[in-house]
């Protein structure tokens, strides 16, 4: 019943933050410009400061001001203006779904996550989760948990005969502690969403799709698709299924609405989409990449998506894939705004499908459109021979 009400709100109302805020526990009071207090925390911040020096100057940080301002804006709209001031946000060009937070407020989000998320609300859910780790001081408590556990194990290994079982349960405790932290970061993330303009149901949507992708990857690699509810012994995070389930339940309880701002998200990501897609295609994960592309194309196949799909098929390179790839390249070209590389891909796919003359025509097209291409000399040998 609640679920229906939530759905109706999503459609019918723009934003109901005040109403939502009444239903969820209030956020903890926030102290701006927090400084670490005790020796452990100061040490953790020092290490994080040193790491950030490296990160700040690292080559794989995306420095595009427009993209950075946009992602930061979503963070601020999710956790609130005063909270987001304490965070330095770095966008890393890594084609995997992840985001991180360190003790001193260094947040990273990876390009693979930006590619997979569909709207501002989902991005806010991911960033809010990471901010939750910072606000709840998780680095410090995790460090202390591990230290007291390893102290205990060190003594046990000397003083207790046959301490193996005890050591195993202590090690299991480390991972259980980390999983509990992830869950509490998830829950505070939902609370940020609930008080923001975004719908809190977005947090669960992320994990539903990540599960779908994991299944597609497994099937593509001829393995058994398998989602578990209970985390394994060494798991640092709850399973995706468990997260989707409890986040969905929490969002239903909150029952807030609001716009997820999918159009604005797509527009902001558009300049980087071809780059992120190219990185994804190179992962040699046919099943997973096909799934990601299909998700992105839910509202129709755009030129960058068609081109990426064509490249994906051409790289797998079965005879049937080359036929599909040529078709996708042609679809992309027919839309009128395809990159010159689409002609190269089309030509190479046709050549390898024994369609020599049409292939050469396409390659000549490529050379004409991009005469200074890095591989122009190589491609021209295929045309002339």
């Amino acid at each position: 019943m609640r679920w229906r009400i939530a759905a109706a709100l999503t459609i019918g109302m723009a934003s109901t933050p005040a109403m939502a805020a009444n239903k969820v526990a209030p956020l903890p009071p926030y102290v701006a410009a927090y400084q670490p207090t005790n020796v452990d925390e100061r040490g953790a911040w020092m290490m994080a400061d040193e790491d950030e020096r490296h990160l700040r100057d690292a080559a794989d940080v995306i420095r595009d001001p427009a993209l950075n301002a946009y992602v930061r804006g979503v963070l601020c709209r999710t956790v609130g203006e005063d909270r987001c001031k304490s965070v330095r946000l770095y966008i890393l060009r890594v084609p995997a779904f992840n985001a991180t937070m360190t003790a001193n407020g260094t947040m990273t989000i990876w390009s693979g996550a930006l590619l997979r998320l569909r709207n501002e609300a989902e991005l806010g859910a991911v960033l809010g989760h990471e901010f939750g780790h910072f606000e709840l001081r998780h680095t410090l408590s995790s460090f202390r948990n591990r230290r007291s556990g390893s102290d205990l194990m060190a003594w046990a290994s000397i003083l207790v005969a046959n301490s193996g079982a005890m050591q195993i349960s202590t090690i299991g405790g480390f991972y259980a502690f980390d999983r509990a932290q992830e869950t509490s970061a998830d829950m505070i993330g939902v609370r940020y969403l609930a008080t923001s303009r975004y719908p809190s149901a977005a947090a669960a949507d992320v994990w539903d799709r990540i599960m779908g992708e994991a299944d597609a990857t497994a099937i593509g690699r001829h393995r058994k698709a398998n989602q578990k509810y209970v985390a394994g012994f060494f798991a640092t995070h709850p399973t995706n299924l468990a997260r989707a389930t409890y986040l969905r339940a929490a969002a239903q309880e909150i029952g807030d609405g609001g716009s997820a701002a999918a159009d604005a998200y797509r527009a902001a990501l558009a300049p980087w989409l071809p780059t992120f897609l190219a990185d994804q295609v190179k992962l040699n994960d046919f099943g997973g990449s096909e799934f990601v592309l299909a998700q992105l194309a839910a509202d129709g196949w755009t030129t960058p998506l068609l081109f990426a799909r064509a490249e994906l098929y051409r790289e797998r390179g079965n005879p049937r894939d080359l036929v599909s790839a040529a078709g996708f390249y042609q679809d992309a070209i027919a839309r009128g705004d395809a990159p010159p590389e689409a002609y190269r891909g089309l030509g190479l796919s046709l050549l390898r499908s024994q369609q020599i003359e049409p292939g050469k025509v396409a390659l000549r097209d490529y050379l004409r459109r991009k005469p200074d291409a890095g591989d122009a000399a190589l491609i021209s040998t295929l045309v002339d021979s």
Partner: protein
Amino acid sequence: MLTSVPVFAQEKTGLKPGFQLKPGTARIVLLRPSIKVGAQSTGGMFEPNADWTAQARENIAAALGLAQTSLGNIVGDYVEPGNADPAMLAEYQELFDAVAQSVIEYQFFPGNRLPTKKRDGQFEWSLGADVARLPGLAGADYALFVTTEDHFGSTGRKVLQVFAALARVPVTAGVHKGFAGLVDVRTGELVWLNADLQMGGDVRDAEGAQKRVRQLLEGFPGKPADAPVTAVSAAH
């Protein structure tokens, strides 16, 4: 009492054959030292300590300033030009760390040498000639890299060590390692590297830091043979 696991037969210094640095001929630039100081928990975990690290950073900088006189050449701090590309310097810091670790791993342990590093008296490592293009190294001849890491054994760790010794279990207390290297800016070659996994000198106080710096610079090419110890201890 069992204080440490047996030390492996390890070399500590590598010098490019024939390399000699005449006093007063070269300008050496010291890149930002990597310094990490903390405690070692009973279970062996590193507990970073911000105050100790700040002290060590100050003490080591002062000690390097003192030692400079005994090196016979000018050592200046690296000053990053305002408009420089910080990513490039960061990459070279990482590259130096990677090369230094490789030298320690694959050259200083004779039993572990790579097939290309087996010839006697050979020391052939390089960061590549593009080091010369690093902003801010224009007037410099050599770049000096310094790295130290200290985990001081906590009381708990030391008590554990005693009990462990009674039970005939080897447990070490404390980690004190460091290395220093000199790179020829014009060719990118690593001309000298000194690494020690069991260093002396408590970097948290001034005298200890001087001892540490003396050890770090042991075997530095081109300084007067017995100068470092006497010169620096004469300074106070």
